[in-house]
């Protein structure tokens, strides 16, 4: 399981306006491109000094490709990163705070303790 890589996807997409729109419009293609081109990029290093070992597990890749944020929560993705990016993509389709309350409703089945988010 690679909670770190899930978080890295959410983190790097969220901070790039062009990638936010691309992930909203074409989630599966964006996830595939990102995993092949960006997953191993160390953020503070030159591209020639990338890592060699990072990849998603199938369930992680599918959750991202399906915009399935309840599943990302179950997989232990950092809830702040998931929330921030999904607000950026979908708040615009709802009345004020409507997306945030729907988000809570879709997680209403979750009980404590929540999935471990330690990486």
């Amino acid at each position: 399981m690679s909670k770190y890589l899930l978080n890295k996807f959410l983190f790097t997409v969220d901070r790039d306006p062009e990638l936010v729109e691309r992930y909203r419009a074409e989630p599966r293609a964006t996830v595939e491109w990102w995993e092949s081109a960006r997953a191993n990029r160390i953020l503070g290093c030159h591209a020639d000094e990338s890592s060699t070992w990072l990849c998603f597990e199938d369930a992680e890749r599918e959750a991202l490709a399906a915009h399935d944020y309840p599943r990302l929560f179950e997989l232990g993705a950092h809830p702040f990163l998931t929330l921030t990016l999904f607000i950026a993509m979908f708040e615009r389709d709802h009345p004020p705070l409507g997306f945030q309350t729907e988000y809570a409703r879709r997680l209403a089945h979750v009980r404590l303790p929540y999935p471990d988010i330690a990486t």
Partner: protein
Amino acid sequence: MAELVAVVASTHHPFYYRASTATGEERPPFADEWVRKVEAFRQTLTRARPDVLVMVGSDHFHQLWLDNMPQFLVGKAPCYDGNFFNEEREFGLPRLVCAGQEDLSAHLLREGLDAGFDLAFSNELRIDHSITCPIITLRPQNDLPIVPVYTNIFAPPLPRPKRFVQLGRAIREMVESWPARRRVAVIGTGHLSLELGGPRQFGPHGPDPEFDRKAVEWISSGDVEGCLAEVTLDSLHLPGNATHGFMDFMLMMGVAGDGRKADYVDTYDLFHTMEAYFTWYPDGGGRS
């Protein structure tokens, strides 16, 4: 020596800026009272006439990332740009630039390392809303140099609550041993109960009003030992999944001092969170 003239602890609600500047139909019904409370709180800092601000906050995965995550970090730079793209996008926060007080940063780093805190540092730090929100609420003219101190309340494994209190106590000692005739305020922001990205988020109140009531009592009465007896890394999951930000309030209790009652306390029950505002005026801080 420097004088610690005020200790200020607050929540940092990123929606305050937008709510307080909105007009007409855009202005939420709770905005006027919120502005009144914040402006009264601001006066508690103004009255202390600080020259320098030490500002304790926590980066929300903006510049600090999981490939190199410090537990406690002191900014040491002549300037700090403020706010990030996603904070402009989601909260409407403005970009700003704060001046840095580099010699105080150097003093905190040297003395902190010597006191057993392995502090990280940054010579190019962009500050996020945990520090820019209190600039907006408490010092909107943004005319004082700052020293940012970041804590990790966000990316486990986290330091335990006691470590936050210990660092707060150390920050007070270090500020009071700074050999500059300056008036220093220490400002820190955190959360009471808070849920982000979970089923209890964005409710009509904070997710755990009973925790909030106890937390306000601990802080306002300076009950450091009572707070430490109940609050653990595990227990903080119960009031809401982002409640570890309460440890920044515990750090500020360490700055204020054990048993030291706050001189100013106010709260505001909003959707999503309980806002809380505290100020202490140390009476033994001046040695100049």
